[in-house]
């Protein structure tokens, strides 16, 4: 039988994968995808806990998160395209103009 802990562990694994992707990958699109994974890990936690507590709050918040994630993906991809047009690369290390 699946217990809450199973979902939380899975969620933790997914979040770690996402975090690792953000830190380790050198492609902006991959980084955005990793962020999506992190968000979905959080979504999973909300839904699981919501079911465990027998309320719908978790699902409602998940909808909000998904909406925001969709908007974020749209803006993020637009930015990535615009950056690519400037520099012909997608490495985040190429975009350090706003440093000291």
């Amino acid at each position, binding site marked *: 039988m699946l217990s809450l802990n199973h979902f939380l562990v899975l969620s933790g694994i997914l979040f770690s994968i996402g975090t690792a992707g953000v830190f380790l990958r050198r492609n902006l699109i991959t980084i955005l995808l990793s962020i999506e994974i992190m968000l979905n890990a959080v979504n999973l936690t909300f839904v699981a806990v919501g079911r465990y507590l027998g309320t719908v709050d978790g699902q409602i918040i998940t909808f909000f998160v998904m909406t925001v994630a969709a908007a974020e993906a749209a803006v993020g991809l637009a930015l990535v395209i615009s950056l690519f047009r400037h520099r012909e690369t997608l490495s985040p290390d190429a*975009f*350090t103009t706003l440093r*000291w």
Partner: protein
Amino acid sequence: MLLLIPLLPLVGFLINAFLGRRLPKVVSGGIACLVMVASFVVSLMSALTASRGVDHAIQQTVFSWITSGDFQIPFALRLDPLASVMILVVTGIGSLIHIYSTAYMHEETDSEYARYFSYLNLFAAFMLVLVLGANFPVMFVGWEGVGLCSYLLIGFWFRKKSAADAGKKAFVVNRIGDFGFLLGMLLLFATFSTLDFQEVASKVAMRAPEAGWGVLTIATLLLFLGATGKSAQIPLYVWLPDAMEGPTPVSALIHAATMVTAGVYMIGRNAVLFTHAPYTLAIVAGIGVATALMAGTIGLVQNDIKRVLAYSTVSQLGYMFLAMGVGAYAAGIFHLYTHAFFKALLFLGSGAVIHALAGEQDLRNMGGLKKGLPITYWTFVIGALAIAGIFPLSGFFSKDEILFRTFSSGRTVMWAIGLLTAFLTATYMFRLVFLAFHGERRHDAPPEHPEEEEPAAQAAAGDLHGAHAAAHSSPPAPRTPDPGHARAHVDHGHAAHLHDAPPAMAIVLIVLAIGSIAAGIVGIPHALGGSNEIEAFLAPSFEAHATAPANSEFQIAPPPGEFVALGRVEPHETADTGTELILMAVSLGVAVAGIGLAVYFWLPNRGASERVAQSAAPVYRLLLNKYHVDELYDAAIVQPIKQGSTLLLWKGADAALIDGAVNGVGAAVRGASGSLRRLQTGSIRAYAASLFLGVVLILGWYLMR
């Protein structure tokens, strides 16, 4: 009624100050003279009313000036016999000098002319406030106001640097004295919780005269410091000789006849207070006689006609303080009154000489003016006789009264010094007369330009006083003449042009000469069959009145005479008429001897004086350099303050501390942000890592708690 007296000159000031630029000279000068004469008439009527009144005074509260809880200062004017004498001198002599000025200043432009008269009227207004004020703060308003006008008028020709400097010097030195006056006033308030002259006097009269260094002594000493500043006594006399940079009528009005007597007046006004502080009185007398002697010796060798008169003024003021110091208040005020006549006369006479010689002030370039300027000569001689103390003239009575009172109060040394000063006075006054008016003419041509005057005068001085000039490395540079006159006389062209005083000046000189002869009538002593009316007239002013104000906590005042009499000398009971007559004969003899000495040295054989000057060269130089007091003050006070200001206040406090703090804050912020901005790496992953780390830390902290 009383308010009108200072208000009239104030109105004159306002008219000339705001409209004078557009008024022709006749109108602006006319208004100024008119308000002064009107003020004199009002003064005369007020004085008559007051002398007939109960307790010989009238008082008028104009408005309530300062009110703070129980503390009340009304703007009150009070006319008692002492104030009557003063306002008559101020408005009377003042009117004459205004009239004289209309001729003397005629060569100024219209706006300058109006500016001059506006200052002169403003001065008269403030002086009358000073004299009429019924409490210390009102007097202080006048006290500061006359200081301001003195500054403005000394620096009237402010384009000339020496005049502007002299004005500043007078103002700064006076400020030192005013500081003392203010402190004395506050101390009196702290002690008696009132600043009204009469209330202070009646409260002081309750006490016994102070034996040691008590609060009264300190308060009176502080007040006396103010008096030394205003009345040019040691140690604050140094501004007066320099004040001669102002126009000559100003020197006559402010720096001889009226303003400089304010200190004497102030002591007379607080006679009861000073009587209760015998230590202060002793100091006053000592300072007075020392100043008289010192200024007299300096006056003996000065070469600028106005400076000689300035030192003579300082010396005569010393006499007045001597009189105050020995408790002979009436005698001091009497001398103030006669001195106003003959000193104004002498200054105006010297003004006529300067006017005639196109601004020349150096005695060494004068001589032989007797023929050209007969009116000036004769009036000047009358003034000189009066100040020397020759028998029937006014100076004799007043000076003799002071010397007699000094002698009869037992201060024989001071009496002897006073006598010596009388001798010096006679000598230097007649030196002035002989050098300026007798002998051969040494003044050739009026200088075309003030700048060219210096070498010419140097050369002339070199001829005459070659020995001195050589002995003395830097002979005093001849004064550049009054710019107004030098400018105006360029047109006149040449040499032989000598004109006696114009009518407005001549009339004033004659009136003052009559005054110098006759002013002594009011004070003919008992010994000579007179009744010394002025002393009896003034007496109520120097006593505490039993009619203390109702709100006073000392309701039961003792008979006022008792305590007051302790400090007062009653000469007519202690000294007999014979002594007085002998003393008179002695001082008259001394004066004649002084004139005789002047005749010997400067009339037939001028060489003699030069030989004496040569044989006593160090003394001569010391006197010529005024005992080096200016240099001493410069080294002891001015330079330390300057150095302290530069090194400590400017470079230390201002530049290092304040600027350092301001700039230091900026530098610290810049340095701190310089290292902090390294955090802005621009790398997204670094930001993400710090964000992540932060979240982990915060979560960890919540979890571990």
